[in-house]
């Protein structure tokens, strides 16, 4: 068993950015000393993926310390959920992780179902898995595109937008929303799959195979891009464990854990898929892992479309749900990792406390560890490789 405490406490004293420029030079060398520069990256910056604010302490272009400052998008989702009935909470959760609303909704539905003892029909599970995998693709392509943008490649971003458009069209046909789905309800899903959506999905997947390989060739096949991300932002296995990382970021550091496989939910026990794992923990490994995840998602969607069972799409659920008093934790593998809902119920019609364990929140805490010692250009790429969504971090 590894000693998780090693990584952070290796230097004495905190190395968080101080409000004023530090002069970390010995006495008497003042003439030659270089002053450290405190640089505010964000909240308006093209590469902070929303409203992240990172304080960088620079020595020249080298980052000495970095501190992520979040909260610019705090809407109090956890508090607001306490005033909403169980079937209304989904509208809030869509807005938490706005790239993968279905995953958050499903996590909440799972928590409620497990707490209230609702049996979900098999078809509902399959529809959930199908929509979630489509949503994962839609989120991962955005990550691939923005990651390329962070490294200065503009083309992949526009190409993935074409794919995302098709994916969102499919999701809109199924759920009625393009990003704010409000589709998964405790007990099942809101509506059955519309007629003809399976042919639409198959047609999309056929072209997407080519497009995905093109995007991969354009980014990962490019030597400049490889030089940019290989051996950059290395997160060791121990650090990843200690900081509670999730999802692709964690698997790239060599921790073989996937909620879909290890804490199964929805239809994932019946599906055949691999969990890609890498061991290096650098940006390149995170890139490879996520790209492979997309291929696995495509594989899963094919299985889900082919094997979609018949039956009800929702269980019989009372209009106003009152789960018994108690606590429940349910997790799903969102595109960013383990997304958990810790639900506390007091038996009333609204949740007593809902805690959203958001993966990007924990992934972001690594920024100081991963960025310190690299260049500004690396900092941008490292933040991009973590795949953060600020809506989920700030809640």
């Amino acid at each position, binding site marked *: 068993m590894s000693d998780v405490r090693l990584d952070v406490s290796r230097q004495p004293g905190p190395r968080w950015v101080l409000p004023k420029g530090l002069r970390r030079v010995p006495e008497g060398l003042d003439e030659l000393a270089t002053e450290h*520069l405190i*640089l505010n990256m964000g909240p308006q*910056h*093209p*590469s902070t993926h929303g409203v992240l604010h990172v304080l960088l302490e620079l020595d020249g*272009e080298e980052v000495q310390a970095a501190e992520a400052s979040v909260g610019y998008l705090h809407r109090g989702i956890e508090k607001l959920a306490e005033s909403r009935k169980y079937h209304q909470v989904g509208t809030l959760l869509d807005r938490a992780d706005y790239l993968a609303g279905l995953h958050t909704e499903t996590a909440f539905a799972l928590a409620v179902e497990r707490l209230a003892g609702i049996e979900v029909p098999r078809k509902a599970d399959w529809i959930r898995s199908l929509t979630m995998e489509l949503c994962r693709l839609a989120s991962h392509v955005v990550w691939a595109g923005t990651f*390329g*943008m*962070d*490294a*200065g*490649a*503009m*083309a992949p971003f*526009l*190409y993935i937008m*074409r794919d995302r458009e098709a994916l969102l069209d499919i999701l809109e046909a199924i759920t009625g929303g393009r990003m704010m789905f409000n589709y998964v309800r405790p007990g099942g899903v809101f509506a059955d799959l519309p007629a003809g959506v399976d042919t639409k999905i198959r047609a999309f997947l056929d072209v997407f195979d080519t497009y995905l390989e093109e995007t991969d060739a*354009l*980014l990962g096949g*490019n030597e*400049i*891009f490889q*030089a*940019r991300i290989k051996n950059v932002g290395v997160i060791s296995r121990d650090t990843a464990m200690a900081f509670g990382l999730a999802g692709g970021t964690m698997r790239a550091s060599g921790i073989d854990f996937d909620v879909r496989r290890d804490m199964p939910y929805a239809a994932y026990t019946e599906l055949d898929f691999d969990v890609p794992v890498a061991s290096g923990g650098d940006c390149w490994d995170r890139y490879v892992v996520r790209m492979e995840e997309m291929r696995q998602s495509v594989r899963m969607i094919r299985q889900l479309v082919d094997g979609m069972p018949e039956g009800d799409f929702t269980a019989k659920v009372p209009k106003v749900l009152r789960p018994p008093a108690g606590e429940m934790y349910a997790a799903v593998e969102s595109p960013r990792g383990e997304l958990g809902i810790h639900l506390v119920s007091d038996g009333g019609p609204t949740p007593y406390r809902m805690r959203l364990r958001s993966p990007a929140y924990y992934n972001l805490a690594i920024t100081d560890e991963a960025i310190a010692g690299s*260049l*500004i*250009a*690396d900092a*941008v790429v490292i933040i991009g490789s973590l795949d953060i969504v600020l809506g989920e971090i700030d809640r």
Partner: protein
Amino acid sequence: MNAAGAVAIRILAMLLLLLVNGVVLIYMLRKVLGRLHIRIGPNRVGPFGLLQTTADVVKLLTKEDLMPESADKWLFWIAPFVVFVPSFLAYLPLAFGPDLAVTRLDTGLLFLLAALSLIPLGVVMAGWASNSKWSLVGGMRAAGQQIAYEVPLMLAVLGPVMMAGSMDLSRIIEAQKNLWFVFPQFIAFIIYIIAAQADTQQTPFDMSEAESELITGFANEYGGMRFGFLFLAEFSNMFIVSALGVSLFFGGWYVPFLTENPVALSLAPLIFMIKTYMGIFVMMWARGSLPRIRVDQLLAFSWKALIPISLSWVVIWACFQRLVLVR
């Protein structure tokens, strides 16, 4: 008309060419990038969006002239011109046809490169005077990059100069009547395009701008027509390095096998422009396709790869020419 008047007309014509070039190139960049990125590009203002850049120029001209409060006023004011004027100067020795140049200098190439190497001074000034940390980093990057890539650029042009035996651009082009220098000087050509891309801050070497890292780097605090000048200089540099490349390696105004054809010779400026624009297209294509290299890799690439290779190429070619060709 006296000689001074003629020179003035030529200079004005060149200024006009620069401005028109800027407008056309911006439109072209948008269209090319748009198509490469499966978009349409501008298509609303005028037919095919042709007037889009004109509209943008009008917008830039009418914009409020903003100056950051803590900026170094004088430097901030003058920096765009320090960027723009050398870029204009570099147009002067360009030979568009057999006898078509603003001024025919025996050291035209040297003059052009010297003018180009002044540009980063303005970029550093802009970065420093803006009193913004992002601009400062951008300006400093530009300086480092310029120093690193000036050397391989100079060394790369030495090959054609040796072959032509002159630094006069017209003479260099005339020497390519029968053989474009790109064939014997292929290595120098590769070095030239890399160094020229870097020297003019084009993707994948747009360190000082670095959209996703430094937002727009040194031009961060500029607005209105000041920004317009910086922007225009960027495009005119693009034109210059492309025109220089055409002059040095692709036979300038000559069309293969039609070197004596009077029609082809009378169309010399047009041919020169077409070749130049094809070069610019390749630069834009690279911009639409490639990610940005990192600043330390950029410098390492220059000092550790480009300069040794170009130096040894110069030595090899000099020996070859002295011992084999010229007996």
